[in-house]
């Protein structure tokens, strides 16, 4: 078991190192940050001045090792625009993203599990077909399109603005973006719950429970659902990633001031330190989420513990 944990952690560290390196390389080959910082028609001396200040005049290898060295010492760099620490900028934006992502996760889990269970229990009936039809729609709908349709419908038909509410935002302002962000996951949770539940219902232990005279409701809630939910843990772990990646688009569309919007802006303005740190932080979130899922399996699936 120690070996299992060790191999998972080692893999996580390697993943992060590769991510950091790739981002470091790509951002330097996709355009000169110094030129982006200076006004478009700035004279060469001004651009050179910025380049020196950012250390971009150094050889690539020196920049790279210096960067890794600073990372190892917990120095994540500073925004080239505001001079503030990237970590601080990220932390300022994180609560907004967590709030949106958290609510999206709750909405998609509750709705997805509920719809999936309803479909499974009404297998083959029109309700089942309707739920499955909806889940395909939810899964296939691009969130930028869905978000825009929601916003424009609200505004042009009902005179209600559903975009980001700024600092004075209320809880109601979060529903439309959270629904947009969680829609795809909702669809896949519903499908997964349905098939998993159908499979579980036909397992021998369910027949045994019925033979023992356990009432239907209890059989379903205490025996079938928990067992059907095990594979969903993996799915939720994976979709944490899509919640964060999806937040890039959703936050942009709904003017939601979170990490996703920050990433878009930082890339557009070539704010290298901030982009590097954000990608690192997002990658770390995904890696850690997956690590937790792996470790959770140790708890809920005794077969792995036995290895």
């Amino acid at each position, binding site marked *: 078991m120690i070996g299992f944990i060790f191999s998972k952690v080692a893999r996580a560290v390697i993943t992060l190192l590769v991510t950091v390196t790739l981002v470091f390389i790509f951002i330097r080959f*996709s*355009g*000169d940050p110094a*030129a*982006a910082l*200076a*006004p*478009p*028609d*700035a*004279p*060469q001396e*001004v*651009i050179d*001045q*910025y380049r020196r200040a950012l250390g971009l005049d150094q050889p690539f290898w020196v920049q790279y090792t210096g960067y890794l060295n600073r990372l190892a010492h917990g120095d994540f760099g500073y*925004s080239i*625009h*505001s*001079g*503030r620490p990237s970590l601080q*900028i990220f932390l*300022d*934006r994180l609560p907004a993203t967590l709030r949106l992502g958290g609510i999206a996760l709750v909405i998609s889990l509750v709705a997805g599990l509920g719809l999936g269970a309803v479909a499974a229990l009404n297998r083959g009936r029109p309700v089942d077909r309707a739920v499955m039809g909806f889940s395909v729609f939810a899964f296939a709908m691009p969130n930028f399109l869905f978000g*825009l349709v929601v*916003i*424009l419908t*609200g*505004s*042009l038909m009902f*005179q*209600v*603005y*559903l*975009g*980001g509410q*700024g*600092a004075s935002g209320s809880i109601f302002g979060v529903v439309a973006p959270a629904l947009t962000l969680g829609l795809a996951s909702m669809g896949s949770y519903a499908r997964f719950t349905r098939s998993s539940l159908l499979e579980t219902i036909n397992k021998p232990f369910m027949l045994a429970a019925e033979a023992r005279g356990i009432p239907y409701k209890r059989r379903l809630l205490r025996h079938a659902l928990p067992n059907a939910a095990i594979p969903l843990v993996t799915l939720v772990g994976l979709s944490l990633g899509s919640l964060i990646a999806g937040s890039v688009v959703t936050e*942009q*569309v*709904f*003017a939601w*001031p979170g990490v996703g*919007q*920050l990433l*878009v*802006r930082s890339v557009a303005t*070539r704010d290298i330190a901030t982009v590097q740190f954000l990608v690192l932080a997002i990658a770390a979130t995904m890696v850690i989420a997956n690590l937790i899922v792996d470790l959770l399996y140790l708890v809920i699936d005794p077969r792995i513990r036995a290895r």
Partner: protein
Amino acid sequence: MKLTRRTLLSTAAAIGTVTMMNPLPALAQDRPNLLIAVDALWETMDPVIGISTSGARVHYNLFDTLVRRNRWDDADGTELVPWLATSWERTTPTVWTFHLREGVKFHDGHVMDAEDVAFSISEQRLWGENPEAPRGTRYANGIIRVEATGPLTVEIETEVPDPSIAYRMVTPVGFVLPKHYYEEVGLEAFGQNPMGTGPYKLVSFDPSTELVAEAFDDHWNGPVPAQSLTFRIVPEYSTRFAGLAAGEFDVIVSIPADQVEQVRNTPGIVALEKSIENYPMFAFNTLNTEELPDNPLTDVNLRKAMVSAVDRDGIAQALWGGATYVPAPFNFPEYGDYFDPDRKAAYSYDPDRARELLAMTDYDGEELIWHITRGFYPNYEVAAEFMVEQWRDIGINVRIRVVDNFSLAYQRPFHMLNMSMSSEFSGDPYRPLWLDWGPNSSRVNASHKTWVPTEGYLEAGERFAAAQEFEERNAAYLDMVREWEDDTPGMYFWRNVVSYGVREDLNWDPGNSAVTIFDRLYIK
């Protein structure tokens, strides 16, 4: 409403709060709280470090410049208006003296004096060896001494006689910052908590969300027309539009050119299209370089043929309707006396002449590559497609290569390079002609340079820079234009257009400018 003891009490309490909080209740009553949806906010609000369109929309509401242009009566703003400076004169050919307005207060109540002005334009901030605000360097170009010579007088000395100093105090280097506060909090904190003398006083600034400012009722040029201003970041255009249509926003910026009609047709809102002092264009690469050893564009006749083959007026009309037009080279209305409405371009649309010019060259159908930065200038790519077809008609083969940012566009080889040039106000054509094309310009100096100025151009330019009287300067200016057209190192398209969507009952008009000011002169 039924009158009960409770409503009576709460009404009384509310009135009590209002009177307590607002010493000027009469003013505060019916002023609107304006919500402006912007695509971005610059991360720092120091008005020089934050020079940018997304910063300038805010700066002029928090800060005042020494001198201002009058765009509330004349959209092109050719008249200078005393602002924080009440008057100025030239004491010697290189020294200008500015007299400051008395009793102007910063937002903390501190009274502005000459020390604040000298600090704002100081060596340390703007024009020294390693200035704190390097983006301001070129506006402060040529200044060698700034000194407070009295409580309300400041002297500015330039290296060579420069008649444009008063005009430059309209630009961001003319903003007056509070020395005491700036030195107390430091450069970075100032950018996050800016304070000036402007009509609005900062309440909160979060670069990721919004900036909120409230009316500064001690403003020297009051009364301030809005109770508060909120600049909220809404990056997606459709969302800004939705918020405006739903009544959430009062003003939105940057409507895509093809969406203006939709805004115009939405009840309750109006669309404003303003042509501003910025001109999208391309530069011909006139040089033979290592990457481009046999550049056909070294032949001036090919360049002239290309300019003559393109119907810019037709294209501008088709893409913009009446929102903008194609000026003759460097003949811009913002230049007051230098502007001549009757002057025509030396090379305008004439396909026959284009063919004649082309016949005089050795050009043999080689592919010419045009670097264009994706989506940077509205309608640029569409116009480029039209132009490529018109060149094809006379046998010139141009291929557009769209890239994602400027540093990629600057990578050689290219034959043509997209850019825009501002005619930043100096009251004359100094900036677009001499700073943008002269011997120190990036067209001539940068790694992506494309031109070597002709002898005649340099001679006229030096004459222009040295001349002090209008007649002499104007003659030199016209000579420069002639030399430029004779060598045709680039082609200007049209005046750039910015657009706003505004709530119908808000009587606000920014003039021909990307700068938004919400004081009593602009809100009627």
